[in-house]
């Protein structure tokens, strides 16, 4: 087995968080290796304008999804390859609200974060600037912005215009969405051409995935990003300190062999399913329940966003396939409101599935097949869809565990994901989809239908101030294992009702700064 010389840090998963960490630590003079289970894509040769071919961007290894409300996995929530799911995410780049960090204090639900909005604010600014987020001139919802978005908003597409007109009619505030695709050139990246294939990978590099931003810059700065490496164990020494990772590496000729990478610091950034899976797979005699799991919370408290979509048919072509699907947004229903029969709330955003996905959604939801399906699809370009981002509450019964009897191609136990909505989550879903329908009808929809959907993963290794009720501290350092950090969406304490990517990246940027400072004090 090849053992690579010790580096300062090894980052497992070069996605939304991992790429930020690799880049920032390398810039600070650290020797860093980033390991990713998937390929290192070149968008200009690897990405096609084809829904089926581009499913290769998704994490499609064997997994089981269960519970009362099983989560849709694969395409929806996780990515494989450098850039992770930011390569195919819908690009809404939103901040959490101040209240999201204190739901326990304010609303009596969930737990408070060990971080406040103010702790993250400078990092939100930093990441937005680095990615070149295009957003509205003013942000009418929480939190108040100190700085304008670095780039101006994109033009409305048909769905955005429908949503805007519906909101105008109902007195709901809307804004062009803050999204991670360029509205003007940035360095060698061109502005968006509105081709609308964002969820299948961007061929132009206008989309600010971490693949073409942080990861690219990290390599330029001297970091090593090693693709096709599936990490299956975090190694610890006799004192219990993390000393590196062991992984299987797939070579270009298809052969597979095991390697080790030694590092002073191990950072796991593999997202809410693979991160807990890796910690659980790293169980040893010293850690029979898995690494960093003295709280028993590794793999627990998984959250998603209730993401039902309501589609409406309009008399004129909407051309929902044009321009980035994320186009307009409202967060008027984000905060707890005593007039509601639930606490916390939701955002409403435009969506724009391509024909294959739209046909699947309609066929499944409406039970259409045969001539009626083909006839229904004639109206494809007349439909506009509004999606929900409904907050869910962390429940210990929702989460990730290892399968007892099923293994993947490497012989590793596959993850079993369990999810059920809580009552409050369901009420948010009902209220949200009702608002979505009202907006579409106010905009002149002739008919509507609702599709159930889920999106985003958050939690399963949450952060906190108390080792008994959290897996990592506010700086993403595991309570139990010196030298081991967890930094990705799995440290979320609450889900908020904003797409999580920007917050994941802000947390990673902050963690990098904390690591750099700790390194200077020799307190890693």
């Amino acid at each position, binding site marked *: 087995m090849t053992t690579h010389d010790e580096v300062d840090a090894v980052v497992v998963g070069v996605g939304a968080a991992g790429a930020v960490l690799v880049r920032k630590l390398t810039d600070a003079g650290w020797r860093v290796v980033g390991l990713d289970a998937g390929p290192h894509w070149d968008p200009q040769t690897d990405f096609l304008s084809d829904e089926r071919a581009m499913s290769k961007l998704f994490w499609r290894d064997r997994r089981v999804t269960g519970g009362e409300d099983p989560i849709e996995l694969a395409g929806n929530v996780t990515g494989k390859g450098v850039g992770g799911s930011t390569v195919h995410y819908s690009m809404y780049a939103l901040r959490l609200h101040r209240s999201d960090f204190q739901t326990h204090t304010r609303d009596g639900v969930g737990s408070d974060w060990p971080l406040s909005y103010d702790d993250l604010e400078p990092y939100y600014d930093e990441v937005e600037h680095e990615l070149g987020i295009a957003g509205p001139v*003013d942000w009418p919802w929480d939190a108040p912005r100190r700085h304008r978005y670095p*780039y101006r908003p994109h033009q*409305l597409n048909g769905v955005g*215009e429908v949503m805007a*007109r519906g909101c*105008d009619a109902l007195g709901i505030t809307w804004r062009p969405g803050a999204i991670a695709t360029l*509205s*003007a050139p940035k360095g060698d990246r*061109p502005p968006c*051409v509105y081709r609308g294939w964002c969820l299948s990978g961007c061929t132009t590099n206008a989309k600010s995935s971490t693949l073409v931003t942080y990861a690219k810059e990290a390599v330029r700065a001297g970091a090593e990003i090693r693709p096709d490496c599936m990490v299956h164990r975090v190694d610890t020494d006799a004192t219990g300190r993390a000393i590196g990772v062991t992984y299987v590496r797939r070579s270009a000729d298809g052969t597979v062999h095991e390697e080790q990478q030694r590092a002073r610091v191990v950072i796991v950034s593999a997202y809410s399913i693979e991160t807990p899976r890796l910690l659980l797979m790293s169980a040893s005699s010293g850690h029979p329940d898995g690494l960093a799991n003295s709280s028993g919370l590794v793999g627990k408290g998984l959250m998603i966003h209730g993401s039902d979509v309501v589609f409406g048919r309009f008399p004129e072509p909407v051309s929902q396939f044009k321009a980035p699907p994320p186009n307009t947004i409202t967060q008027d229903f984000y905060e707890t409101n005593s007039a509601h029969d639930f606490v916390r709330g939701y955002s409403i955003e435009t969506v724009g599935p391509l024909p294959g996905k739209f046909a699947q959604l309609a066929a499944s939801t409406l039970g259409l097949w045969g001539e009626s399906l083909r006839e229904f699809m004639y109206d494809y370009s007349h439909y506009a869809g509004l999606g929900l981002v409904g907050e869910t509450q962390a429940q210990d019964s929702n989460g990730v565990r290892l399968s007892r009897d099923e293994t993947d191609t490497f012989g590793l136990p596959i993850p079993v994901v369990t999810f059920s909505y809580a009552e409050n989550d369901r009420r948010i879903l009902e209220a949200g989809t009702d608002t979505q329908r009202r907006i579409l009808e106010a905009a002149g929809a002739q008919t509507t239908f609702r599709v159930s959907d889920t999106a985003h993963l958050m939690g399963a290794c949450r952060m906190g101030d108390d080792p008994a009720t959290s897996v990592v501290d506010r700086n993403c350092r595991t309570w139990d294992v010196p030298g081991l950090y967890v930094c990705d969406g799995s440290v979320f304490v609450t889900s908020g009702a904003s797409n999580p990517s920007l917050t994941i990246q802000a947390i990673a940027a902050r963690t990098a700064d904390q690591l750099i400072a700790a390194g200077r004090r020799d307190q890693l």
Partner: protein
Amino acid sequence: MFMKRSRRRLGRATAFSGGWSPPMRRLRTQLAVITTASTALLWLDNLSEHYRGGFERELMYVPILANPVVAAAGAVTAVTGGRRGGRLFGLLSAAQTAIAVVGFVEHQRGILKKPGGNQPRQLLFNAWYGPPVAAPLQYLGLGLMGVMATVPQSAAAPLLARIPVDRLMRAFTALNLPPLWAEIGYLHARGSFQNRAQWLPVVTLPLAGAMSALAATSDSRTARTAAQAASGWTALLGAAGTGFHLYGLHRRYGGYRRGSFLFNWLNGPPAPAPLQMIGLGLAGLAAERAVTRR
């Protein structure tokens, strides 16, 4: 027969060039040349923009159809030094000012009709992606310049007796700069001033305008020198801006490649747009030269 033709030519020349001093005749010819060239370039820009907008309203065809006729009359006027086509060019130029005013009003209505149009905070966003606010006013400037190039001496004399032509031209330049400045300003803001050079016209055009305005009211040598420099700078900005916009097209995905170029031309930085600054700058310089020769 030869005599007859030349007499007729002379007759027309009397109506439009007669009475003007040679430097003034030259100035008017230069104005006709600048107006014609600018009109033709503006047509290209106008066509791209209205095509991009899908000619959603029939009114959008009006400038596209009218403009070549104006340019043709202007070309004839310019080539013949005002001996032919002058009257028609003058009339058409007057009509063009009317088109400009209607277009301006319609563009504002187009912006207000967009979603959120009743909310002041959405106005800027709608202006960014609606019909360009001040674009039709470019036709106003060109129309006026066309009129200036063709107006008979008898009609212009009372005005010129009170205000010398160079100061008139300064005033004209000063009046044309604010809409152009506004247009450049909000469109470069939409581009987030991603290239620092985008600030250049935004910062310096008001100064150039102020200098022209000053020279329009004062005959002092300093004011005239400053206005001269400002006109030269404006023309230079126009040339540099065109270069930057062409570079901007190259930076877009696909750049100048076949199958991408037309799309990028329509959606990228408008390459012909900065040329208006060349036109304005040259008009200012021409006025100064006419005066010097006086």
